[in-house]
């Protein structure tokens, strides 16, 4: 006990949970305002100030929300994996909190990318769902997110939940490339109707700028929601500690 106290005094850094909470409270309004501003600019560029595609018409505008959501879905998993390393290697409580709160956000981004991709696919492919390699990998990613959320909720002790789920998260990191490769392989075997490539490397600058602004907006949104959710989880943990101490004291 005394050693943890001393390290806190020596290193009052941002990774100290108490300091973290104070910092988040102070900068949250700025971050939220910045997110809203980025979305406003991004939406203007995406819906008004960008050209329509000569092949896909107005549906190309769906790209500006679909692709950033897909990027963030993968990015969130990488955040969870880093948090899992922080939990398992350095045993840092803030890493536990970061991993736990990232999972629902990642699931929402994955769901958004699936839904918007499906809506984009209807006019392009003529069907709401096509077993395209990207969509299929995303669907499996969604199941992985939901499984990890379920695992997190199933274990009562927060520390152990973080470590066990961290291991499962890291197994998922090893598996994501294998799944991606196998689904691509499977997709080339079964290529029936012409599968369209949406976001190739040859994208015109007039479309790249709105895409990047939207991606920045999504990134800021992730930071805002994730930091806020981490702060909430820290409050919940304090409530838990107070409850446990009270229960021990009265007994």
């Amino acid at each position, binding site marked *: 006990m005394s050693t943890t106290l001393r390290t806190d005094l020596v290193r009052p850094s941002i990774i100290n949970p108490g300091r973290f909470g104070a910092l988040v409270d102070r900068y949250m309004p700025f971050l939220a305002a910045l997110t809203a501003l980025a979305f406003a600019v991004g939406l203007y560029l995406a819906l008004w100030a960008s050209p329509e595609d000569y092949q896909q018409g107005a*549906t190309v505008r769906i790209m500006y929300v679909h692709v950033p959501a897909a990027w963030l879905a993968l990015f969130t998993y990488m955040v969870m994996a880093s948090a899992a390393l922080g939990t398992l290697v350095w045993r840092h409580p803030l890493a536990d909190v970061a991993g736990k709160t990232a999972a629902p956000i990642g699931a929402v981004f994955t769901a958004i990318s699936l*839904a918007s991709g499906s809506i984009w696919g209807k006019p392009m492919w003529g069907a709401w769902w096509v077993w395209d390699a990207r969509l299929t990998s995303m669907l499996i990613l969604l199941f992985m997110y939901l499984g990890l959320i379920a695992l997190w909720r199933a274990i009562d002790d927060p520390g152990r939940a973080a470590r066990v789920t961290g291991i499962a998260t890291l197994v998922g990191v090893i598996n994501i490339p294998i799944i991606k490769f196998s689904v691509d392989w499977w997709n080339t075997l079964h290529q029936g109707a012409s599968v369209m490539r949406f976001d190739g490397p040859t994208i015109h600058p007039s479309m790249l700028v709105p895409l990047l602004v939207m991606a920045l907006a999504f990134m800021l949104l992730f930071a805002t929601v994730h930091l806020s959710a981490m702060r909430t989880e820290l409050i919940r943990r304090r409530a838990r500690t107070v409850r446990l101490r009270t229960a021990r004291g009265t007994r």
Partner: protein
Amino acid sequence: MGDYAGYVIAAYAVTFGGIAALIAWTVLDRVGARRALGRAERAASRAGDAAAGNARDAA
């Protein structure tokens, strides 16, 4: 936007609906957590009073 306006509007509605749900979850979760902390602290202070009372009675 031509023939595809419906699809574009639907995609943006789904996206921003999801984002709104995410923000609503963040806010409601914070409110719930603050309440849980308040309850726990009130219970702790009550328990503290009771313990102090017991100690006084014993003395």
